[in-house]
């Protein structure tokens, strides 16, 4: 649910990073946090376990400044990827305006990626949404790891809708902003 305030000329959209456990969702937000000036981003909040695994969600507010006379703000969230935290994932999707699905490129993670994508569609359905009604992009992360699936294999398995997809090494920042730009544009275009 995008919030458009005509009185103060402000837009607020919610972006969710979804995907398997240890796939790099939090790493994406951490890189964005580190790279952007404090005037553009707020404080990052992580509700994580003692071992740094996301327990509930990470939250990072971004202020993109004025876009066509409207102050534009994005709230970035991650979900906990671990299978047992589905109730939390479902909650975070409430009011979502755009989704980045972060897939782990390692070949032995393919089945988990497919299951996570299926799980996301199931959770979206709880809010009456589908991947055709919500702006959605894919990020193939961990391209620097050994034993990864090829780009074509990932596309064939995960990108049946032909949405924008990006190769990334989130820990180094490669592909992180390309992904964020694509979902930001897609979300704003959906409002027009």
């Amino acid at each position, binding site marked *: 649910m995008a919030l458009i305030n*005509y009185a103060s000329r402000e837009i607020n959209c919610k972006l969710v990073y979804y995907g398997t456990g240890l796939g790099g969702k939090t790493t994406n937000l951490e890189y964005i946090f580190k790279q952007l000036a404090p005037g553009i981003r707020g404080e990052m909040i992580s509700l994580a376990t003692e071992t740094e695994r996301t327990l509930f969600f990470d939250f990072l507010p971004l202020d993109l400044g004025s*876009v066509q006379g409207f102050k534009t703000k994005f709230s970035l969230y991650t979900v906990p990827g671990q299978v047992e935290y589905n109730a939390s994932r479902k909650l975070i999707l409430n009011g979502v305006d755009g989704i980045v699905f972060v897939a782990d490129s390692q070949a032995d993670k393919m089945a988990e990626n497919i299951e996570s994508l299926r799980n996301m569609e199931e959770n979206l359905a709880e809010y009456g949404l589908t991947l055709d009604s919500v702006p959605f992009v894919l990020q193939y992360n961990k391209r620097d790891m050994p034993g990864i699936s090829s780009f074509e294999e990932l596309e064939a398995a995960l990108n049946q809708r032909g949405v924008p997809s990006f190769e990334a090494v989130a820990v180094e920042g490669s592909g992180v902003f390309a992904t964020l730009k694509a979902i930001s544009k897609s979300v704003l275009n959906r409002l027009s």
Partner: protein
Amino acid sequence: MLRPGGHLVLTEEGLRALNAGMSDLVAETGARAILLVGSGGQLISAQGETQHLDTMSLAALGSGSFGSNRAIAGLVGEEGFRRMFQQGRQASLYMSLVGSGDLLLVVFPNEITMGKIKFQVDQALPDLEQALGAMYKASPTTPFRAAPQAAPKIQDLF
């Protein structure tokens, strides 16, 4: 009620009604601040002493906390908890559902009783729900026509 994938457009008139109701509530209860938060965690409006509060983070965390408690309600056979209270040493939080999914979050000092907050919030809710409901109903599906022109700005930003 918001349709799936719908948006909320806050109009000047509607927001004035919401702000007036929330401002009265601050005055009547002595609360420090009152936030109205959308079901997805977005801050709709804030009244009171908000200048030293990180209202966006408070909205996101309050919404997550309230949402998880509503899910807990389902697990114990309740239809859904409508209110939540957290007591601190100096300040406390009271949260109440507005309509079917939005949230009113009240930050108040401990000199004020929770009963007073609950009573005053319950009194104010019908007017707030009416003002918010009217804006949900009137929100267009394409509320930001100039959006495509934003692409170059985003390209330059990151």
